[in-house]
């Protein structure tokens, strides 16, 4: 518990800065919505629909009625909240363990009467809570902004929750994967680089899975496909198989982190 508190306290500035930036971004994007839903916006949308289908797929614009604020969010949110937010989650996770070795503070921590398991538990918990707060506050902010700027009376709560859960789940996947990277590396820069590389590879994989029939199988390997917003808008659900895959991967990352760290030699 003391490790969790310590980590949480030390990461709160980063958390605060990122969360605030995202709340402002969401405010900005939401305030654009009324003009999107207006007549001029309608013209733009008509033009947009004339674009090649593959182009729409690539940017996740198919199935979307951009005069609906939630569809509008599904469009912009997947880049901003999901993808850029993944950078936050990856940075958070990837630094958690390796920074102790990188900054040589491991020599302090590891000399304390605490098992390696408990170190992992405390730090995993800190990663989880940071991501939870990050996505939680963005969701609350979205809820407020969407209600202010929504031009129609209809608001699909179920869709809102699904679209809010999808970034959270993706950030958890990415965060815990990066955490695993963090337990296996000795230098912070390297762990950071690998984690960000994984984020963009997984994202790219999800785009390829959408674009080409042949690569369709990729969707089982990346959380960006599991919780793809344009897909959620279309089906108004998240497929059970994806949830199971997501949970299995999450557990896999956690268990591997414990096992790896338990036997690791800590060099200072």
């Amino acid at each position: 518990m003391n490790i969790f508190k310590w980590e949480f306290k030390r990461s709160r500035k980063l958390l605060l800065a990122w969360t605030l930036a995202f709340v402002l971004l969401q405010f900005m994007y939401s305030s654009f919505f009324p003009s999107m839903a207006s007549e001029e916006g309608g013209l733009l949308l008509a033009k947009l629909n004339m674009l090649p289908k593959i182009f729409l797929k690539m940017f996740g614009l198919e199935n979307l009625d951009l005069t609906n604020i939630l569809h509008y969010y599904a469009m912009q949110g997947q880049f901003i909240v999901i993808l850029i937010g993944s950078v936050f989650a990856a940075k958070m996770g990837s630094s958690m363990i390796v920074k102790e070795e990188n900054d040589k503070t491991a020599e302090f921590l590891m000399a304390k009467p605490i098992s390696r398991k408990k170190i992992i538990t405390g730090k995993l918990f800190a990663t989880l809570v940071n991501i939870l707060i990050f996505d939680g506050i963005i969701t609350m902010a979205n809820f407020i902004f969407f209600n202010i700027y929504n031009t129609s009376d209809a608001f699909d709560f179920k869709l809102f929750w699904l679209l809010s859960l999808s970034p959270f789940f993706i950030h958890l996947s990415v965060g815990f994967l990066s955490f695993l990277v963090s337990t296996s590396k000795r230098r912070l820069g390297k762990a950071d680089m690998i984690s960000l590389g994984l984020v963009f590879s997984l994202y790219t994989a999800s785009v390829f899975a959408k674009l080409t029939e042949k690569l369709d199988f990729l969707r089982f390997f990346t959380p960006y496909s599991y919780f793809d917003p344009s897909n959620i808008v279309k089906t108004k659900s998240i497929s059970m198989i994806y949830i199971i895959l997501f949970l299995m991967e999450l557990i896999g990352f956690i268990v591997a982190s414990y096992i790896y760290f338990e036997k690791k030699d800590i060099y200072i």
Partner: protein
Amino acid sequence: MKVIETINLTKYYGKFRGIENVNLSVDEGEIFGFIGPNGAGKSTTIRLLLNFLYPTFGTAEIFGKDCFKESPEIKKLIGYIPGEVNYYEDVKVKDLLEYSITFYEGDKEKYRRKMFELSKRFDLDLNRRISDLSLGNRKKVAVVQSLIHEPRLLIYDEPTNGLDPLIQKELFDLICEENKKGVTVFFSSHVLSEVQKLCTKVAIIREGKIMTIENVEDLRKRQYKIVKIEGDVGEITLSGIKNLKTRGNTTSFLFSGDINELILFLSRKKIDNLSIEEPTLEEIFMDYYSKEEEHNEHIQMGI
């Protein structure tokens, strides 16, 4: 009771040697010196004892507990100062020390009192940020941190590095005080004079191997004396003489023969001045090295 006991403790970093077959045995209440040049494997040994590392093979026990299976239990009783002190840079000294306290069971208020008391003794400002501290001040934080929870074993890896002589003396006094209370001290250093001052027993490590473990007293007794004579002594016909040097009126040599013969010999001479000195541990140490090297050369030459 054995406080530290290692049997054939060996660590390779890939192909590189860390330490090989280190056998150490430290009794309760000892101040045990661990001496060797930089890179000899002192820190590797300590990091194995603290389970930062796992051994390639061999075993290590502290207070009868397995260092690689029961490490958290062992660490309750250990105070550790690393060779290079690195702490969380962006926090205050007080925050760091209070974080340290949270890891230990027991009376936290007592630990806090000890924190204030020790900081005062070492003139350490608790409200400064770690990043603003000099090397010496960081070392002080390490000293305070290692003693707050009243450990039974102190593992100090070159603790005097970067401390000014006054603080060094304060630290040595403190180590002696703790030792009088029954605390065992494992003290690594490459500065021999400080080991000579403090320790009862010393292990010499070189290139990953323990060369000898001896009582500091025995080590000195068994060895030669440094003899300096002023005056005309003529030719010296004694056995056990090395490094004979004559400069003007002064003759000096290392003597490892019978001291009575030396005195008998000198009684027949008219001399102006005489000094017979114990060699410092440093000199003994250098002697050890050169012997080893000679030995190796002989092996290489096939003798």
